């Protein structure tokens, strides 16, 4: 491994920079106690006012921690929590439109599991299958290495890179301890003494340490080294860059250098914090090329650097707490996930990076709580946009893969669930699934892998990516090496915003026009859940495509889930299946079973187990008690010859203790009637029809999405809705027409007026003409145009076909007859007859583009031909042909 991930994280330049900074700083200042915080920007409040816990008192464990005195009870507890979480997870399915996502999630979960396991079983931490394990395992090794210098622990240093070790040594001279990975080194120290791992390890969800209250999931600053110098002060308050005092006055932050200024210290002084961006005079001066320095602090007072400044100059680290525990010897440790600043990534800071931007990494480490300084707040773009106060807020939109040096946007679902819970919930399942992976040779593989350079790591014994057993191995490789600048810097024009809102993929905030149906579904599901028996509950939903069937059910399930979270209704599990995504109808058993229990078995076995559960009422595990809601989309695809699949699924709800609720969705209204009577009697009782939308509803749907974006002419939306309502009432169509219209307008503006300022301003309405064009494109078959642009002979052949049809009244003709007609037409109009063989070719070409339907050309004169479109269309297309005006007389 020539290039280790963490090497690039802490590159040599950084070290130098750091030492330089150190040299500047004056020695020994005691930690500053929190003071009253001066408001920063008018709205700022005291963010960092800590609980006034005695700072000397080392630890206060807050009541809600879960304590595991030994391993066995520990496990019990874990299971309890897992069960709690299970229900949550199964509800999570509701959010996921497709099965595949489940897997990804599991994938992620697993990595968390292995994190959890790492505490217990050290050998596990190097599992090759865990996407994050390699970098982590490696960093731990290196940290060991680093520690061995200071702590003199006899571990053979695995130094992947000589130069790096040297660098480290230099840091070591200044006693770098804090960053060291405590867990491992300590363990090995212990190993020397007693050879026993600490038995007691107590996990906490919340810890008060040294005056700060830390929870799992918090973001914190982490000390980079044991500070003996001046930088050991952690100012809670930022000082004004001009008067060098904090004071209670309102401060404003420069959007460029992030420096803070009192409003009153500025020249001229400001009264209020201005709207929008504000740049200080120094940065402005620097921009126009003048060399201006900040005023030096008065003699004897040094400029105190805030933690934010230190972090952004990589003198500190930020991390995300994944879990916390107390070691057997009483030290408090936690597992953290590092954040890096853009400078620490392989490509360095990019022009599009924000000043306060951090990247989340997939690099984990166990650290002692002692090295944690205090909270910081790393936010998603949405949260960040709202946050307007405090100096310790950071922006994080991407995850940085320290191994592949690749960036990936953070998925939004990440924030929905707490990672810690997830890791427990799937542990059991993961255990049995991956027991084969956690063997020694995987560790070996891992070790090998770390030595390999990147491309070789996918060598022969790497598991295949598309096999489920490999859990889609290697997906972490996907990521962009460089975040494209235009994505970050691009400011959306109104039309682009409208386009984005009209995407079928974007989920609207509100779902208008289906309230009645949604209420009905809600009451059905609620009734079914609350009913103790859950007898024979089955709902059949039908309606033409694009009328919001699936969307309504899913949104009902979402709102019900929030009710479950609030505790107003009983928990339930929700399984969503799409008939179109099943390889065969029988596979549905497998999918259901997997969704409920997490195991993959053959469909026959799954059927057996499901029968046990639903028919015989044999409950395995506590969760099986919960009612189960099964949503089957495209139900009609489950119809087999003997209809046994549908029968089984619809029969379960009728059993006494099944607690199964089936919601089936299909297009046809009379599906139950088409089925065997024994099935329709089980399914056809409760039905819900989603009628096609009418034009007002379509208009409302479109306008609700476009709320606040004023690019469409009012009539344009109405026109599109009326048109779609008249044809199909399909909301997807209506949205697509509008989006296409916006696209056409966008194209028109960007291409045709590329020089005018119209494009720059992004103004311009989507007009009727654009909608008209979109509708044309969507609904008009292109055959008229194809006929119009046919070759000359093609046109003659088409005319002959029509002529033949008018003459004989027969739609079908043979090539021989056609050729005769063509030759007649040609001779009487002074055209050269091209010969039979050529004519045959022309006919076949027309057949290829399906203007004609014709048999294979080898049949020659026996070939049968037929027009594929009404003769009127041909007549319409060719009547006004300029090249061949005589065609018109045969087309009437």
């Amino acid at each position: 491994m020539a290039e280790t991930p963490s090497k690039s994280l802490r590159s040599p330049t950084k070290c130098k920079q750091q030492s330089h900074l150190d040299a500047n700083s004056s020695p020994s200042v005691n930690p500053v106690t929190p003071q009253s915080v001066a408001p920063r920007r008018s709205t700022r409040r005291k963010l960092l006012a800590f609980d006034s816990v005695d700072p000397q008192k080392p630890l206060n464990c807050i009541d809600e921690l879960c304590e595991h005195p030994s391993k066995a009870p520990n496990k019990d507890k874990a299971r309890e929590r897992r069960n709690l979480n299970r229900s949550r997870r199964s509800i999570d399915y509701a959010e996921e439109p497709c099965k595949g996502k489940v897997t990804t999630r599991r994938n992620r979960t697993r990595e968390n599991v292995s994190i959890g396991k790492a505490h217990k079983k050290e050998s596990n931490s190097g599992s090759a299958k865990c996407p994050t394990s390699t970098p982590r395992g490696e960093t731990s090794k290196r940290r060991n290495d680093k520690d061995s210098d200071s702590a003199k622990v006899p571990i053979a240093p695995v130094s992947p890179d000589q130069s790096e070790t040297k660098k480290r040594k230099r840091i070591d001279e200044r006693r770098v301890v804090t960053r060291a990975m405590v867990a491992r080194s300590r363990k090995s120290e212990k190993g020397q003494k007693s050879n026993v791992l600490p038995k007691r390890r107590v996990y906490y969800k919340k810890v008060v340490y040294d005056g700060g209250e830390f929870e799992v999931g918090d973001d914190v600053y982490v000390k980079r080294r044991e500070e003996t110098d001046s930088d050991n002060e952690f100012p809670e308050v930022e000082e004004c860059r001009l008067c060098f005092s904090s004071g209670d006055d309102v401060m404003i932050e420069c959007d460029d250098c992030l420096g803070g200024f009192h409003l009153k210290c500025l020249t001229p002084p400001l009264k209020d914090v201005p709207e929008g961006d504000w740049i200080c005079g120094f940065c402005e001066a620097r921009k126009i090329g003048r060399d201006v320095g900040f005023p030096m602090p008065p003699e004897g007072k040094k400029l105190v650097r805030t933690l934010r400044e230190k972090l952004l100059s990589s003198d500190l680290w930020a991390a995300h707490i994944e879990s916390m525990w107390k070691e057997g010897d009483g030290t408090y440790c936690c597992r953290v996930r590092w954040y890096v600043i853009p400078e620490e990534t392989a490509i360095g800071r990019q022009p599009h990076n924000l000043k306060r931007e951090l990247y989340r990494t997939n690099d984990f480490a166990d650290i002692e709580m002692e090295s944690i300084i205090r909270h910081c707040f790393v936010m998603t773009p949405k949260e960040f946009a709202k946050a307007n106060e405090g100096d310790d807020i950071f922006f994080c939109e991407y995850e940085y893969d320290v191994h592949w040096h690749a960036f990936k946007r953070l998925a939004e679902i990440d924030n929905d669930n707490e990672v810690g819970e997830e890791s427990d919930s799937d542990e059991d399942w993961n255990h049995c699934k991956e027991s084969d992976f956690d063997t020694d040779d995987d560790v070996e593989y891992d070790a090998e892998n770390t030595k390999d350079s990147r491309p070789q790591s996918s060598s022969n014994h790497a598991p295949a990516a598309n096999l489920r057993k490999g859990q889609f191995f290697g997906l972490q490789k996907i990521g962009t090496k460089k975040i494209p600048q235009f994505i970050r810097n691009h400011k959306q024009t109104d039309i682009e915003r409208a386009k984005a809102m009209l995407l079928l993929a974007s989920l609207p905030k509100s779902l208008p026009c289906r309230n009645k149906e949604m209420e009905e579904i809600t009451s059905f599901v609620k009734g079914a859940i609350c009913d103790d028996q859950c007898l024979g509950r089955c709902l059949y939903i039908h309606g033409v495509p694009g009328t919001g069937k699936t969307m309504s059910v899913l949104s009902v399930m979402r709102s019900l889930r929030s009710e479950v979270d609030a505790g107003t209704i009983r928990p339930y599990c929700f399984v969503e299946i799409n008939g179109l995504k099943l390889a065969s109808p029988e596979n549905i058993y497998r999918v259901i079973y997997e969704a409920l229990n997490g195991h993959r078995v053959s469909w026959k076995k799954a059927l057996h187990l499901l029968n046990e559960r639903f028919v015989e009422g044999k409950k395995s595990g506590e969760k099986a008690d919960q009612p189960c809601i099964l949503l089957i989309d495209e139900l009609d695809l489950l119809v087999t010859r003997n209809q046994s699949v549908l029968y089984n699924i619809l029969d379960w709800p009728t059993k006494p203790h099944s607690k199964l609720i089936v919601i089936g969705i299909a297009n046809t209204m009379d599906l139950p009637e088409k089925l065997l009577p024994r099935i329709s009697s089980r399914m056809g009782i409760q039905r819900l029809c989603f009628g096609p939308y009418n034009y007002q509803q379509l208009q409302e749907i479109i306008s609700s999405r476009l709320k606040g974006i004023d690019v469409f002419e009012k009539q344009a939306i109405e026109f599109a809705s009326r048109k779609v309502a008249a044809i199909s009432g399909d909301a997807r169509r209506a949205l697509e027409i509008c989006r296409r219209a916006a696209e056409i307008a966008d194209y028109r503006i960007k291409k045709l007026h590329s020089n005018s300022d119209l494009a720059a301003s992004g103004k311009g309405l989507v007009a009727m003409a654009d909608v008209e064009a979109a509708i044309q494109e969507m609904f008009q078959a292109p055959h008229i145009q194809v006929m119009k642009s046919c070759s000359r002979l093609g046109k003659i052949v088409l005319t002959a076909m029509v002529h033949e049809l008018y003459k004989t009244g027969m739609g079908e003709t043979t090539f021989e007859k056609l050729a005769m007609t063509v030759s007649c037409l040609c001779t009487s109009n002074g055209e050269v007859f091209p010969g039979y063989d050529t004519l045959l070719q022309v006919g076949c070409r027309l057949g290829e583009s399906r203007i004609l339907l014709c048999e294979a050309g080898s049949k020659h004169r026996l070939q049968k031909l037929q027009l594929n479109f009404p003769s009127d269309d041909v007549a319409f297309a060719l009547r006004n042909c300029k090249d061949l005006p005589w065609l018109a007389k045969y087309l009437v």
Partner: protein
Amino acid sequence: MGRESHKMKALSLLRSRICDPKFVFKPLHDSPDSNYSKLKFMISSSITEACNNSILLLGPRGSGKSAVLELVVGDLLVEYPDMISVIKLSGLLHSDDNCALKEVARQLCMEHQLQFSKAASFDDNSQFMVAMLKECGLAHKTIVFILDEFDQFAQDADQLLEKRVRSRFSHRKLLFLPPSTEDSKRILEQVLSLPVDSSFPHDYAVEFNRKVQDILEDRRFKETFNKYLNLDSSIKHLLRFLFCAVSCMDVQTGFLTYENFETAFSSILRQPKLECLKNCSILELYILVCMKRLEVKEQTLCNFNSIMKEYKNVHDSFQTSDYYARNVCLRAFEHLINRELICFTDSRGYGSSVEFRPVKLLISSAELHQGLKAYHSCPAILHKLMDREG
């Protein structure tokens, strides 16, 4: 020698231009109405604005659908390196779901240097695909699926998509139409003129271009060219013509002549049936004429035996000199079948012998007539027989 080499160079330059869609389609790109710029706009908006789109490229064979798509994708790959993965499927190969998914998974693996397993099931592959789509979405990577021969995936492109699929299809349509005659001429001129710069001797290039201009102005050439385009005006067809013509160029003189185009025209537009007749023996012609007579007598079904009877009738009534034994006739009959001048009407029936299987004529009487006229040593009796029915 030097002169020879630059003539060869000119020839190969012309050939490479004709084979290079980039060169041929380039002049049609500049206008905002061209399919190239529309398609590029749509795909790049998918890349920059994360708009999911499905676009249908429609048009007759050889109108440049794939060529333009390749061009657009190629340009975008340069413009946005590392941000596009292209997955190509062909309806002829992957119309089966299982096979298509496997191929998608394979290409995704290839694209991202992942290990691919052939053993993965349908479920695995489809879930892998969904997982990959999500990951790529997060990593700002756009996946372009190119479904060639799309109508093989659906029953009929656009018109007969399954209703659920149609509802989800985003209905962008780009229609590729053959170029107008003027455009064709412009392409012709552009492809054939040599660059007047240092790459060729100045005099040679000027002379070459002048000759090309002369040819293009020639009335005969215009006639031939129009005749050619009357059949099929697509770009591919045009390029084929040019390639043939350029390949006929005499390397000694190093210039194109009108005759080159004439040769190309006749070598592309063949008359297979008439040419077949030209190579037939007299006996074979007899058989064809006999079949023709039977058909006129509205004896719709005939086989070798009934033909032989007719042949004998003809012989008896006209006392021709060409009377052959039955086994010779059978051989001639088989020849005709092999040349597809006649065919069996039933597809099965391999068990029964050739003599008894019903056959039909695959050449119209007009063609037969024409063929006989063109045949040098055709016996007068055959003409007479044909004329009588005429």
